[in-house]
């Protein structure tokens, strides 16, 4: 698969910062609003109130948008939802946090969808990507998927015209006899590799921990034109005093490990 590789590594993988293309992003969030988005997270809220996946997702998106705008106030965001297929929630790309907050308030779970087809999402993205490029921007689709047994499908043709980057966050139940999150994950990876322009990242978690979701969102802040391959991600780096003995104290979570 042809993939546009970011120009910011030497062959040894060391970081370089060449004066290369640097476009502001148009980021299209597509949030799965199937009933499985209402599954509760492990930790409850401040007053013991249960937190659903959707609650965490909304907070994670706000975290992402605020952080992205702190880095570069020119990035913009739009919103879609996924039930059986994708549909617009807020179509205009905007760099206003208020606007994102208003869109997220409209986000609510739907009934059980049965199947998930990404074709329309890719169609929308392809169309929007052309507009973004005309403004010297790049488009990124950010899918947040919540179903543990339903493999997403698509009929997107094989094409050399990859106009947008595709990132995925997958929240699921722990694997068991009644579900198949591994198969779903594999289908998401296939879709990603099929469509993405720059290196796309996919993260999954079945732990139900919001802070893990937030950490994944922060890694996904990575600008597509400056990314390394997912296998080589070395962040977040740990800020601990360097000592001759082991870096992390026992019981500390190793942030680089995939959580499943």
């Amino acid at each position: 698969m042809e993939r546009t590789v970011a120009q910011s590594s030497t062959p040894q993988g060391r970081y370089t910062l060449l004066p290369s293309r640097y476009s502001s992003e148009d980021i299209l969030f597509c949030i799965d609003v199937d009933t499985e988005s209402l599954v509760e997270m492990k930790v409850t809220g401040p007053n013991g109130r249960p937190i659903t996946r959707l609650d965490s997702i909304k907070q994670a998106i706000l975290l992402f948008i605020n952080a992205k705008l702190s880095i570069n106030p020119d990035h913009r965001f739009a919103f879609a939802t996924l039930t059986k297929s994708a549909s617009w929630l807020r179509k205009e790309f905007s760099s206003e946090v208020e606007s994102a907050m208003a869109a997220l308030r409209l986000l609510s779970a739907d009934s059980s969808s049965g199947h998930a087809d990404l074709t329309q999402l890719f169609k929308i993205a392809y169309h929007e990507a052309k507009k973004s490029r005309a403004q010297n921007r790049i488009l990124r689709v950010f899918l947040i998927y919540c179903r543990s047994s339903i493999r997403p499908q698509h009929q997107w043709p094989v094409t050399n015209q990859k106009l947008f980057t595709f990132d995925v966050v997958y929240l699921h139940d722990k694997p068991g006899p009644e579900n198949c999150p591994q198969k779903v994950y594999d289908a998401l990876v296939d879709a990603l590799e099929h469509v993405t322009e720059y290196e796309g990242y996919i993260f999954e978690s079945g732990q139900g921990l919001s802070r893990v979701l937030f950490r994944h969102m922060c890694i996904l802040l990575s600008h597509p034109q400056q990314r390394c391959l997912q296998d080589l991600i070395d962040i977040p780096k740990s800020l601990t005093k360097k000592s001759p003995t082991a870096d992390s104290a026992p019981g500390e979570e190793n942030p680089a490990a995939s959580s499943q």
Partner: protein
Amino acid sequence: MAINTVPPLIAAQLNYLLSNSPLPINVEQMWSGSKHHGLLDRFTLVIPFCLDYIRWDVIYNALYPLAAPDIIFGPEDESFRPYHVGGGDGDLKSPRKSLSDWNCKDPTWLLSLILELRELYMTYQRKRVGEVDDERLKFELSTIVPREGIEMYMRSGIEKTEEVKFAVPLLGVDINKMVTGCPWRHQQKIFLEVIFPVGRKYRHAPSTPRLKLVASPELKALFSTEDFRLPPWLDDMCMAEYLPILEGLLQSQIVDAVSSIDVRRKFIVALAPLFGRPVEADPVFCRKVAFLTSSGVFTFLVHFSLPLQFPKQQPVLMLQSSQHFNPSGAPIKSPVITEFPWSSTWESSEMAERFFDFLVEECLNFKKYCNESLLQQR
């Protein structure tokens, strides 16, 4: 057609102008010529001229969409009559040809007309300035005439004095080409604004003109006109003498500004082995970089902001939590951090190590700050 829409032929010409103008022209307001149809067939254009703006009203008539618009100039410009072919005034070209050949279906016509009128306006102002009875001004004009691209105009200054303002483009060099990976869509330019008070009152007191350096807005990613100290205007100097001195100084500072990009770049690259691959860095001007780091299970972002005078001037830091949020859901940010061990003489690798050590401690303070902020919200 609905009320408050712009008739299509007019809209086509206006949109073409706004998308294709070589100068940043804006529409300030739109209104309708008749309360009966309510269509927006009139608007004010704000046109840059001599480092200021002139406002012209463009008057179409929605009922006669094939006709050319009238243009109404500003109140101080009553003597600007570009449609009048001046007797014996060989210089003043009339745009009458453009207007008589007006083709409403060609979307490029309005832009051509406005640009042509602006040229004529420039000539008109030059003529007005040339007619001012002021020895000093006449002398200045004669010496700078060969320079290209100068715009000038006469205006009433404070207390009814008259002033002549010059906008002198500086540096023949293409700044855009000097920046590798330059993202600027427009040509960046630097101008010297020179304002001479004129008139009888000042004949015996050749005063220093008011001087200001003005740059196109995007240039501030590379160079700050505010930080640039203008060389002194000595007594009895004239523009022809001052400009080369200014340009020499400016040229060397621009060259320095361009090479300081790589100094900042080197620092950013030196941070990567310790802080990990940045989530995003500005690769052209190297003014900003953001890293994702953690201390135990506390994950947060470190934002570095590098000033133009780096390393003479130190960077500025800000931390942003991924786990603590204020009541509106925004992640908690630290106040801007400026107190840390710093020396401009350190090698970039040493700077990086010192920042790492500093942040190992500082992030614990930040975590406490975040937790306290959360407690205050309860």
